[in-house]
C-alpha cells in the first residue's frame, strides 16, 4: 500500500477573528465566564448588520467587561472606571459619523457611572450601551454590586447581601432610553439579533446581558459552574417581549424575564441641538454640516482650506 498523498487541510477561518486583536490572545477571562460569549455575539451582529467598521468606535470602562476594548480590532478606548459613557458622549458629539458603542459591566455602568448613564439616556445621546451583568464586581474579587440580589454571599457581604438591587431595564427606560432589551448568555442568537436592531436605531440604546461569573459569584454561592448557570438561564428565562420593565426585577436564582422591552422613537441629542439652534440662534453655523462638506471636499480631492 502506498502512503496517502499529503493533503493540505485548510482550516476555515473563524469568522470572528478579523474582529479581534489576535495578537492579544489569550484573553484574561476565566473558564465559564460569559463575556467572551457576548463578544462573539457582538461580532456576529457586526457581520450581519454590515456596519462600517472604520466608523465604529468601542468605549469601555474598567472591570472584566472593560477589557473588551482591548480585544476588539476597532478604534477602541479603555477609559476610567464609570466614565465610558461621558467619554463616548464627547466622541459622538465631536464626530457624529462615528457609531459609538459602550461595552461595560454592571458595577461600572450603574454604581460609579450611574449618574452618567441616566443623563446620557435623558439626553438620548446616540450611543449604544452593552451591559454585561454578572451581578458582582468580578475584577476586584467579587464584591457586592448595585445589581447583586438579596442573600448572595460576596466578598464584602460575607453574611449575605441585603442592599436592595437595581432593576436595570426599568431604570434605563425611566431615564429615557429608546431601546431596552435583556438577554442571558444562553440566548446567543437573540443577543446578536437584538444588537443588530439596536445598532440600526438612532438614540440611546441599552442591552443588559446576564452572564455567569463562575469564579466569584457561582462558586461562592455554591451554584455550580458556568454550565450549571447555562442550565439555570435555560430553565428560568421567560421571553416576554414588551413586558413592563417594572416587572423585570431579578432575584437570586429566580425567574429571568428576557426580551425587548422598549423600542420607541424620540429625536436624539444632536438632532435636538441642531434643530433648536437653527431656529433659536440667528447666526447659527451648523458645525456638522460644515465638517461634512469639508470631509467631502477632501475626499473629492477638491481644494482645501488648510
Amino acid at each position, binding site marked *: 500500500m502506498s502512503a496517502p498523498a499529503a493533503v493540505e487541510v485548510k482550516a476555515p477561518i473563524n469568522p470572528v477573528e478579523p474582529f479581534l*486583536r489576535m*495578537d*492579544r490572545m489569550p484573553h484574561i477571562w476565566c473558564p465559564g465566564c460569559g463575556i467572551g460569549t457576548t463578544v462573539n455575539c457582538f461580532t456576529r451582529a457586526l457581520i450581519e448588520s454590515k456596519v462600517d*467598521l*472604520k*466608523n465604529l*468606535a468601542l*468605549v469601555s470602562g474598567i472591570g472584566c467587561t472593560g477589557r473588551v*476594548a*482591548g480585544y476588539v*480590532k*476597532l*478604534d*477602541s*478606548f*479603555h*477609559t*476610567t472606571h*464609570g*466614565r465610558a459613557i*461621558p*467619554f*463616548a*458622549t*464627547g*466622541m*459622538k*458629539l*465631536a*464626530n457624529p*459619523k*462615528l457609531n459609538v458603542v459602550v461595552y461595560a459591566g454592571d458595577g461600572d455602568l450603574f454604581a460609579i457611572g450611574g*449618574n*452618567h448613564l441616566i*443623563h446620557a439616556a435623558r439626553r438620548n445621546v446616540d450611543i449604544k450601551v452593552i451591559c454585561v451583568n454578572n451581578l458582582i464586581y468580578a475584577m476586584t474579587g467579587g464584591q457586592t454590586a448595585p445589581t447583586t440580589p438579596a442573600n448572595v454571599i460576596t466578598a464584602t457581604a460575607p453574611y449575605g447581601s441585603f442592599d436592595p438591587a437595581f432593576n436595570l431595564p426599568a431604570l434605563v427606560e425611566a431615564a429615557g432610553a429608546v431601546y431596552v432589551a435583556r438577554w442571558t448568555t444562553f440566548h446567543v442568537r437573540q443577543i446578536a439579533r437584538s444588537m443588530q436592531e439596536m445598532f440600526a436605531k438612532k438614540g440611546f440604546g441599552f442591552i443588559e446581558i446576564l452572564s455567569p461569573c463562575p469564579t466569584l459569584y457561582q462558586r461562592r454561592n455554591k451554584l455550580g459552574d458556568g454550565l450549571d448557570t447555562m442550565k439555570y438561564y435555560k430553565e428560568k428565562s421567560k421571553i416576554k417581549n414588551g413586558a413592563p420593565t417594572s416587572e423585570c426585577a431579578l432575584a437570586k436564582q429566580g425567574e429571568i424575564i428576557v426580551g425587548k422591552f422598549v423600542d420607541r422613537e424620540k429625536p436624539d441629542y444632536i438632532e435636538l*441641538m441642531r434643530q433648536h*439652534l437653527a431656529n433659536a*440662534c440667528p*447666526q*447659527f*453655523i*451648523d*458645525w456638522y454640516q*460644515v465638517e461634512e462638506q469639508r470631509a467631502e471636499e477632501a475626499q473629492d480631492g477638491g481644494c482645501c482650506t*488648510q
Partner: protein
Amino acid sequence: MHADPKGVLTGVHFLDGDHACCEGALAAGARFAAGYPITPSTEVVERFAMRVPTVGGVFIQMEDELAASIAIQGAVWGGAKAFTVTSGPGFSLMMEHIGYAAMTETPCVFVDVQRGGPSTGLPTLPAQADMMQCRWGSHGDYEVIAVCPNSPQEAFDLTIQAFNFSEQYRVPVFVMLDECVGHMTEKVIIPEADQIDVYPRRKTTAKQGEYLPYKSNGDGVPDIAHAGEGHRFHMTGLTHDERGYPAMTVKVQDKLVRRLQTKITNAIEKITLFEAADLDGADAVVLSYGITSRVAQRAIELAHAKGLKVGKFRLITAWPFPDYKIQEIARTAKAIIVPELNLGQMSREVQRAANGACKVVPVPHAGGGVHNPEDILKAIEEAIR
C-alpha cells in the same frame, strides 16, 4: 498655522478674564467644551455656550465635573480641540481625568479659576491655592504645563498658548486663573486671525496597519490618530507599550513613565515663559504670579522709591518649574521674596530650586483678598536688612 478666522473676535474689547479666556479658546480653535457650573469660573462656558453656535461647535453642560473632564477627552479622540473649565471643588473632582489625559497623552486644556479653599471655602473670592494640586493632583508620576495669566489680556493670550502647548507636547495644560483676574474687566486686544499662531494637531502620517500610537516621533511625543480614520488602534489608561496595548511590566512602566516626564523636562527652556526686570545687582527679587504679581509690582515700586535694589521675576508658566532661572537668581540675589495667595506652595519650589544659595522668604496669604503691598515691602526690607 494661523487661527481659523471664524473663531477670532478681532478688535479692541472690554472683557473680564473669564470672557477673555473663552475668546482665547475659540481663537485657538477649540470647538468643543464640556462644563459644570461653578463659581467663579462659569462665565467662561456661559460665553462659550453663546458664542460657539455662531462659530460652529458644541457646548454641552455635563452632569458633573467627572463627566466634563472625560467628555472633552472623548471629543479630542473624535477629532475636536476641547477644554473644560472649573474651580476648587470641581477641580478636585477632575483629578482622575488629569492623570488619564497625561497617561493617554490627550491634548486638552483645563481652566481653573481659583477660589479660596479647602472644600467649599470662598466661592466668590480669590486664592492661588490649587497650584500644587494642578501639578500633583492625580496619582502617579507625570508632568503637566500650567500658565498663570495676570490680566484679561493674558487670559486671552495664554489660553491660546495653553492649547498650543497641549497640542505640541500632548499633555493636559492648565490655565490657572484666579477669581480676581477672572472677574477683572480690562482692555483686551484680539488681533487678526493671521496674527495668531495655532499649533496644529500632530496627526500621524503612518499607513493603515503601521501606526504605533505611542511611539515617540523624535521628541518624546507620539503622533495622534482620531477614531474613524481607519487605524483601528487601541488606547488605554493602563501601562501600555508603543502599540497602545496593556503591558504591565517593570520595563514598560519605566520606559513609558520616563517618557511622559522627559518629553516635558527636556523641553523646559522652550516651554518656560517669564517676565523679569532689574535682576542685575538686585539684593532682593520678588517672585510672583497671577494676580499677586500686580500687587507685588506696587511693592517693588515702593521699594525702588526707598532706594532699594529690588528685581522682579514673574512666572508666566508655573509648571514645569523653571529651576534653572531660580538658580541663576539665587547666585546673585540675597533673597527671593515669594508672595502668593496660599500658605506656601510655589515658595517651596523656589526654596528647593535655590537650594540654600540665597534666602527664600514666603509671604503667605490665606486667600479671600489680595496682599497689602506694604506687607510685601516689609518682607523685602527685612530680608535685605
